[in-house]
């Protein structure tokens, strides 16, 4: 250490903060991009947008933006006052002819429909998009299998691609076998195998949106296997060309997205806001504070405690309404668990016992507190006209104990240790802690239930690999038909997390697909749901609600169960 009188150049120390200050000013110039023109409407979306590739998107926030950027053959429009809240109206197609047997749709495209770079929207754009969907399978490719020959084409293409990779010769599959043709530039004919009542709804769903091939071509990478990969730069401004009410002007990763009204959109007169900003914010508390301090006009997701507090204060800007989704617990129905031990939940009586031993009222009254309704049914009630869900298993601890005893565990004796898988975000932990205690108390299971809280990525992986005994889950409907729920539990469905297989259920679902009469169809699906609820591979807990925050000077935010407010219609005074 210093010993002498030498003053160690104190002034030189001051250089440090001075230098830092200079660097600070410089870097601030770089990093804060400057707001630019203020947006006419700002909203906070649920999280950062993952992808703008309509073929691949499956997340809610992506789909919300997709509806602003693109328009399908049909499109959605808010329908105030109905249970569904949305109606399907012709979009890029101005006139649709339906054959008598209801299997052939002829779409006449609008001559004035344009892409955001001025190109006309033609039938070939839809063919390109659907063909790509079949060639590069994604989450929703199965929806295209309603088209005649689509499933065969997709499988044939995959076989051909693998053959090519192994340098085997095979004839290329012909897309002409698929039931979609461009009769001319403005006419598209679609052939289905059997009538699908909700086909217009499907056409209004992003996987059926058109794609602008010429703007994507510079980013194409053809592979040896015959697949064509498109570099993601095609989704970024200024490369992205879309045919909807807006075009993508700016996309700053994890900061904001700016949508500007598409001057070539055929219905541009109806677009209410010219510039819309989407802010991305991960933390729910911060999002709420940002809204409160005027940083946003619409907050698209409000969490439990905040919503409860706002409701208690009678805040008028809180809007809570039923969602088209259910929160449930899912059981692993395989005979063996992943670690090799026998699975107690393979026995249907055990599953039923657990379902009947959970008092769900505490969950919605004290934990989530957003006014949700407990449910014993899988499909959310009151949304789908004409459909009645059968009754499920009610709370009955005595019956539950009896069932458990019948299954071989009288008074819970001999029941193996089991764990409940959930992700640590939000309220899932609290709900799980309560549920475990309920089963411990009502089924006399003591300490045998443990919690397995993991972070979200691990959770999804375990769920997908069936690496769990019991897990929390939820499901939201993608389109307004029962099959969006019931299809999930078909034995061969990719989305069937529980590995529950029931041939009668499959048969009912398949027959319902082919059934032309709407009432008979719904009756079949109701019987299918009854089987599901009786066999109990899932334990429905409550129906979700949506909660929005927006002030009185904001208009056009549609409160529909699909959580799909259309950006075309929103505006602020």
């Amino acid at each position, binding site marked *: 250490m210093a010993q002498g009188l030498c003053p160690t150049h104190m002034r030189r120390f001051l250089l440090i903060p001075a230098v830092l200050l200079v660097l600070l000013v410089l870097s601030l110039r770089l990093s804060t991009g400057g707001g630019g023109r203020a947006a006419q409407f700002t909203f906070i979306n649920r999280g950062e947008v993952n992808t703008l590739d309509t073929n691949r998107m499956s997340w809610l926030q992506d789909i919300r933006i997709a509806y602003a950027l693109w328009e399908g053959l049909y499109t959605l429009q808010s329908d105030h006052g109905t249970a569904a809240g949305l109606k399907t109206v012709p979009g890029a197609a101005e006139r649709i002819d339906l054959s008598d047997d209801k299997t052939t749709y002829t779409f006449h495209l609008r001559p004035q429909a344009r892409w955001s770079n001025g190109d006309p929207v033609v039938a070939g754009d839809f063919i390109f998009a659907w063909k790509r969907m079949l060639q590069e399978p994604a989450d929703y490719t199965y929806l295209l299998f309603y088209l005649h020959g689509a499933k065969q084409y997709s499988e044939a293409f995959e076989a051909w691609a693998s053959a090519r990779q192994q340098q085997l010769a095979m004839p290329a599959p012909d897309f002409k076998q698929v039931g979609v043709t461009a009769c001319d530039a403005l006419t598209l004919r679609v052939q289905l195998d059997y009538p699908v009542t909700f086909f217009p709804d499907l056409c209004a769903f992003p996987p059926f949106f058109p794609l602008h091939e010429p703007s994507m071509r510079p980013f194409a990478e053809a592979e040896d296997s015959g697949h064509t990969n498109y570099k993601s730069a095609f989704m970024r401004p200024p490369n992205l060309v879309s045919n909807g009410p807006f075009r993508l002007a700016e996309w700053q990763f994890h900061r904001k997205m700016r949508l500007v009204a598409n001057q070539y959109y055929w219905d541009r007169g109806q677009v209410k806001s010219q510039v819309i900003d989407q802010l991305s914010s991960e933390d729910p508390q911060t999002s709420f504070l940002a809204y409160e301090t005027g940083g946003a006009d619409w907050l698209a997701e409000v969490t439990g405690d*905040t919503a409860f507090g706002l409701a208690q204060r009678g805040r008028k800007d809180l809007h809570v309404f039923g969602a088209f989704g259910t929160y449930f617990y899912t059981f692993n129905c395989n005979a063996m668990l992943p670690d090799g031990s026998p699975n107690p939940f393979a026995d249907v009586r055990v599953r039923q016992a657990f379902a009947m031993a959970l008092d769900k009222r505490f969950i919605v009254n004290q934990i989530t507190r957003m006014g949700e309704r407990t449910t014993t049914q899988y499909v959310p009630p009151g949304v789908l006209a004409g459909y009645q869900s059968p009754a499920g298993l009610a709370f009955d601890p005595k019956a539950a104990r009896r069932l458990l005893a019948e299954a071989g565990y009288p008074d819970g004796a001999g029941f193996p240790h089991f764990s409940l898988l959930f992700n*640590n975000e939000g309220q899932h932990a609290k709900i799980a*802690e309560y549920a475990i205690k309920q089963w411990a108390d009502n089924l006399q299971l003591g300490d045998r239930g443990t*919690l397995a*809280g993991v972070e979200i990525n691990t959770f999804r992986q375990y769920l997908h690999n069936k690496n769990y005994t019991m897990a929390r889950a939820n499901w939201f409907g993608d389109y307004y038909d029962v099959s969006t729920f019931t299809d999930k539990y078909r034995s061969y469905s990719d989305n069937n997390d529980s590995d529950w297989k029931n041939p009668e259920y499959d048969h009912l679902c398949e027959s319902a697909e082919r059934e032309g009469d709407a009432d008979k169809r719904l009756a079949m699906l109701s019987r299918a749901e009854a089987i599901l609820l009786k066999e109990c591979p899932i334990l429905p807990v409550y129906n979700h609600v949506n909660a929005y925050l927006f002030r009185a000077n904001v208009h056009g935010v549609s409160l529909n169960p699909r959580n799909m407010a259309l950006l075309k219609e929103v505006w602020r005074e």
Partner: protein
Amino acid sequence: MTVDSSIPIDAPGGGLHTRLFASRRILLGSVILLAIILAALATLPMTLGHRSSLYYNSQDAAHVRQRPCLTRPFGTDSLGRSLLGRCLLGGAISLAVGTAAALIAIILGVSIGLIAGYHGGWLDALLMRSVDVLYGLPYILLVILFKMAFQEPLARLISPNAANLIVLFSAIGLVSWLTMARVVRGQVLSLRAQPFIEAARAAGLPQTRIFLRHILPNLVGPVIVYATLTIPQAILQESFLSFLGIGIQKPMPTWGDLASDGLLALNPLTAYWWMLLFPCTLLAVTLLSLNFLGDGLRDVLDPRQDAAKL
């Protein structure tokens, strides 16, 4: 780095002990710390006992989110569990995490620092370069990776809760030994250069005797100081892991976990202030006392230390 040779370790009259007790920092820090440790440990039978009102998992549906009152001094959380019980058990677990991490840091850090400092040469260079490289990695990366890699395999061997705790201790401990190693090595190096060591060697004393009688006692000071300062760091790291959702397995509480939950409840609209206030106060008081204790110990045991080594 020098040892203040004006404080002979084994001088008659106990100069060191007098100074230890005279330091107000040390006194205050130790008293508070002791009180908290005693409270947490003494109530363990109650916080872990199913029948007791302080049981950490006694969900009471009728008394959810109650503010503090006479029967429930710290209030209850959103499942009706007594916050006092959870804070006490949380304290025990948090302090256990901190202590375990400090122990691992001592064992690993002292061994490696000793070997490096005593042996010198290529082994020293290799070990210290490795420490430098590990310093160069962001510690959060190592903690998370370690936890993710070992939690599941271990959970298959022993119970999941025990595995979770063990992995938590180890993950945090494994990133805490680096400073200790550097400090110990530096201390050994400067000791070796001291004249009295040379003299001892010249007098023909065996290596082990030099080691045990002269080097080790002089290490005790810095090791205690840095061990005491490692504990608060470890507790904070555990709270960060809880915030990320990969900390202790629920429903076991730690202060960090309780603070994280309390944060969610600290909404401008609802303000369940007791859910945040009590865990945070306990955390702040404990960590401050640990920091004061560590600073005080350093003032006494190592006043001339190159203070850049935290």
